[in-house]
């Protein structure tokens, strides 16, 4: 059964992912100085990736387009399990395999972002999670791990 948790910063409950991968807990941790700097650089770089690759569909404010592209703001998927979000970003939704199947709720399909590097995806997801849902960053290492499973 698919359960998406209503997530705030402390999203420690397991969620099932669209691919039925077992979710790991998203991490809430005290950020060291270095981590905070890295996070901040990630945010800025991620914003650039968002503008280039995502803004057209998800819009300037992450609010999406009714019936076409979902909002990232207040999104349980964006705020939830990092692995599931990475997988979705890599695969896309509604296209041909390895795309994830469409939910039927939105008329558009989302292309996969396999052509982006691990760092670019980490930066992008760090940006949108912070900007639109106020949750913690995603690392390139996490992206690499999911990519290895997906590709």
């Amino acid at each position, binding site marked *: 059964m698919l359960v998406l948790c209503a997530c705030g910063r402390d999203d420690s409950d397991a969620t099932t992912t669209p691919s039925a991968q077992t979710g790991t807990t998203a991490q809430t941790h005290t950020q060291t100085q270095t981590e905070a700097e890295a996070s901040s650089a990630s945010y800025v770089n991620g914003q650039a990736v968002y503008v*280039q690759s995502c*803004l057209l569909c998800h819009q300037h*404010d992450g609010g*999406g*387009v009714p019936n076409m592209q979902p909002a990232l703001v207040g999104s349980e998927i964006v705020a939830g399990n990092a692995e599931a979000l990475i997988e979705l970003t890599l695969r896309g939704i509604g*296209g041909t395999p390895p795309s994830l199947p469409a939910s039927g709720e939105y008329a558009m399909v989302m292309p996969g972002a396999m052509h982006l590097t691990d760092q670019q995806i980490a930066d992008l997801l760090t940006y949108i999670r912070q900007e639109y849902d106020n949750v913690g960053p995603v690392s390139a290492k996490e992206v690499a791990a999911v990519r290895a499973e997906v590709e």
Partner: protein
Amino acid sequence: MFATTLLLAAAAVGCQPGENTGITVPEGFTATVIHEGVGSARHMVVRDNGDIYVALRQRQNGFGIACLRDADGDGSYETVEYAGKVQGTGIALEENWLYFGEDFRVVRFELPDDSLTPVGDPEVIVRGFAEEGQHAAKSIDIGDDGKLYINCGAPANACQIKMRTPGSPGMEPCPILEYAGGIWVYDANKPNQQHTRDGVRYATGLRNCVAIDQHDGAVYAVMHGRDQLDSLFPDLYTPQQNADLPAEEMFRLEQGNDGGWPYTYYDGGRDERMLAPEYGGDGQTPAEKGKYTEPIQAFPAHWAPNAVLIYEGEQFPEWYRGGAFVAFHGSWNRAPEMQAGYNVTFTPFEDGLPSGAFEVFADGFAGVDEIRSPRQAEHRPMGLAQGPDGSLFICDSVKGTVWRITHTGGDE
């Protein structure tokens, strides 16, 4: 530029005088809200007796056809009944049949003479459309020839090998054209036909023509042009160029015509068909001449044409007779530029072809001057229909508002 007049009659349900649901129309015309909140309105038809049928994108309490009646003849359609366990975009009337275009099948209901609502279960007329996302809306029209015309939008943007992925080339040939990316014709009276086996492909090379109107031996269609020129080919196109390209093309289609998608797109600034970047184009190279059907008019990029109506009435002045109204749902993909469209245009015709430039006929639907996202639009024009007395009806997908436009002034 014509002078505009803002007039709003307060007869509609829930509409108070002066309430800001008004739109602007040219001098001599009156816009009246005849119903509000009909549901997630898509296309619309008006019956000979004045009853109105609106297709809903999502069922309302289980039913996807809103049936409106002005029971007391006061000009506002207070009576609404919902019928039909369907949902989708297309709707058409032929004698005592109400046809409905769901995303993956076209059905029809019996509509008795004295009944406001259709009766019985839907009868499947055509099934077997590919169940893929993007451009699934099946607009339909029953032609003068009694045949069923169906828009089969392509489940794609530009037929790339890797969908919507920067730099990915197009599939050669584009296999989608075999079953979509075109307009198909079917027998309107034969049940359980299978797409594409039992139909005829009327025209190809059309990415998505939500706006179709068969009239006088041809199909008039306005096409949604492709997206993302700059994000897919940043070395060839700037963001500004993406906002301005390609044109939304209006076609006058005959059997066998080819609108050029995906191999080409239309550059409204150059007034020229160009080779698409997915197929070797570079923003400068024109398409092969003589190979594709030329548009009869080019509209601004991304305005999203969702309905076209050739005016066959006599209520409007001579200038409007035989001409084409187009409802533009409004763009979502012009960022970082502001969004545009959100209006109804009119193009004068002579002998079945445009005789001049288009003009904005009805405006102000969005309710705001600058639109960054469709979410800000109060209304988005979606459907057009002509009443038996020659009035023009417009419906909106956001609030389910229905307007009636009448000509009350003198001849222009």
